[in-house]
């Protein structure tokens, strides 16, 4: 159980999710990585360039400051790590299950939140935007690829997400094996 908690420390060092974009003018592609507390370009200049392109369709500027969840997330993981370690020391099977349940809820909550932000960015467009395509919205896919005008956007989990999955599986195994005893 301690391993399941401690491994979560790695989440702070790797992005959780990533959105990659390809377009004819960007043969090498560009993209952004979302981590527990930040959203940044895959290369330093990418976020600026994505925002530069987005302003033509009237999308709001994507900045880490505008997304308050990025300030909360580190604490959520902090809570999971500390409580997980507590359970490892003093907890029992039930606590493991509760911990796991919370973690899964957080994960689902996070994905729903991510979807809502995507919806907001993709639909809530400036009416004065130079490029307006009737009926067109620009919500990136939650997971998978989608063609948005000249840009093919691909949204996929990144290392941080997989680390969380590993942590969950370890916790599940702990719960499972301890049940057999």
């Amino acid at each position, binding site marked *: 159980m301690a391993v399941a908690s401690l491994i979560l420390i790695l989440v702070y060092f790797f992005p959780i999710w990533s959105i990659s974009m390809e377009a004819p003018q960007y043969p090498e592609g560009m993209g952004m990585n979302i981590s527990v507390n930040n959203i940044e370009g895959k290369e*330093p*200049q990418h976020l*600026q*360039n994505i925002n*530069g392109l987005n302003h*033509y369709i009237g999308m709001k500027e994507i900045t880490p400051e505008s997304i308050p969840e990025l300030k909360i997330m580190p604490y959520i993981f902090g809570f999971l790590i500390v409580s997980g370690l507590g359970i490892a020391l003093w907890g029992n099977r039930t606590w493991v299950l509760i911990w796991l349940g919370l973690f899964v809820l957080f994960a689902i909550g996070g994905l729903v939140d991510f979807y809502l932000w995507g919806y907001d960015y993709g639909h809530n467009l400036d009416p004065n935007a*130079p*490029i307006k395509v009737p009926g067109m919205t620009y919500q990136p896919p939650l997971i998978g690829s989608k063609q948005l005008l000249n840009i093919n956007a691909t949204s996929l989990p990144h290392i941080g997400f997989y680390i969380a999955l590993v942590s969950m599986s370890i916790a599940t195994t702990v719960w499972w094996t301890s049940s057999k005893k």
Partner: protein
Amino acid sequence: MKTTTTKHWLWSLPVVALLGLLSYGCSSNGELGSSAEAAQQVYVAPGEHDEFYGFFSGGYNGQLGVYGLPSGRHLFTIPVFSQAAVNGYGYSEETKAMFQTTDGFVPWGDAHHPELSQTNGETDGRWVFINENNTPRIARIGLDDFKTQEIIEIPNSAGNHASSFVTPNTEYVSAATRFSIPMDEEDLSNMDVSIDTYKENFKGTISFIKVNEEGKMNIDFQIMMPGFNYDLSHAGKGPSDGWSFFTSYNSEQANTLLEINASKNDKDFIAAINWEKAAEYAREGEGKVIPGKHYRNYIDHEEGGIAKSELIEEVRVLDPRELEGLVYFLPTPKSPHGVDVDPTGQYIVAGGKLSTVIPVHSFAKMEEAIANENFEGEVMGIPVLNYDSILHGEVQNPGLGPLHTEFDGNGYAYTTAFISSEIVKWDIEKTEVVDRIDVYYSPGHLMIPGGDSQNPDGKYLVALNKITKDRYLPTGPEMFHSAQLIDISGDKMKLLLDFPTEGEPHYAQGITADKVIKEQKRYYDLSENGHPRATTSEKQTRVERDGNEVHVYMTTIRSHFTPDNIEGIKVGDEVYFHVTNLEQDWDVPHGFAIKGANNAELLIMPGETLTLKWEPKKVGVFPFYCTDFCSALHQEMSGYIRVSPANSSTEITYGTGQ
């Protein structure tokens, strides 16, 4: 009578036919089995890259052309010695200083010999140097951003032709005066004397410019030389490292009708300079320090890439009459042009343009002759070595008018023959011709990537032809010059490709693309923009009046200027547009052009700040716009500036999107 003539004529027919057959059989001339085979060798598929960069001097356009090899595609032109309206180089306030000389602002130059920087005798992809022949200067171009970084003026020189050749670790880049001029014995100042006092008063100089780790150039020392014409040069390498070789012609010291009067002597000289010894003399404070005003212009990267000019007052001069072991003359037939040192550093090859042979000097024999004082004379304190004692061999039948030689690293040398319009391949050890190929027409220099270094890439050779005539679709009386790519990977040379080249390429250099690509800049980091008048965000944009000077602090980003409406300018104002390109994306420059500007446009790279001066002369509203099709809404990227009469009271106002 008539029948006899006919008979005679008929008799000659079979001879003509036989000759024709013979010459057909012999004239391989590098013809390939099929042109498809050649096409395949030079074909670089869409989206693929060339194997080599080629840097071709632009000659009288003053710039440096960049070509891909083997495709021959013209990739870029780097502005160096001539103002370039294409991007505002030499017109923008930031770059004007690059053209500063002791003769004032010199907007044009004659660019001759590019030379890549070297480490351990190999091209290293850091910089390329190039000389200016007319107003003696040497430029250093950075290969990270393909921009001219520094230009240094050479004092006490007139016609900087034998330049800019580097030593094997780029310790020095050298220069020598093509035209000797009357120089005062004491301070080398140019003299107001009759031209026909040539023999008495005229002198030459050879200069060694030290290059430091960052590339900064300074003239370490000059060597006073007899009043000949110094033509070309190459540094020694391997065993001959520490020496440099300069050809001279006009040892007759003629000052008029040189084509006749400077072509009389059977032999002129190669000057062998012991630069290592000279550097030691200079370090020890030998020679004398004399007035020698010259400018060093450089891009100040600490301050936003603004060019600065520094006036240097003095220069150290070494006199071979006083300092022993500095210079030796190698007699060389006849009016030699190129001098090239083979990759092993053992042999010094001269292109005696009026000579019927290619003389090859041996460095080892030269050293021996010096040690034994095997001299046949002396000129201005400089010992003249005995020709026979230093000769490795003479290449017989090398074609007419041999000029320049490059090497493939496999024991062969390739020499251009200007008059017979061919390239001759010969074995260096045996000094024997092994192959020859016609080129079209009249080659000057030739280039093998790394072909003058210790490690040539002996795959392709480029002939830089001086005469184009019928090779391409005609473009009136004036045409681009013609380069030809030749495959030298086999025993026989094969002609692969013709391609036109801008200006008049003299020398060229080639380098494996890998060595250059790895350090490429894609844009300038805005956070590192140290320009004192940069505006790194739209919030900082403003317009400020200071007397009749108006400073517009402007930004560009797809697809608008900030500010794009400006009022309060008056006739007689000097308006400075300081334009910062806020983009941080590869290949998104913005242009800035304003109606009636008397200079040029600006082409501002991402993250860069450039300034255009504009002096409005008429009342009204004037548009400005982006000149580089930057985005789908590029045509919308424009603005207006209102100019009021000189005595009006229109206040300065500005903005975007109000």
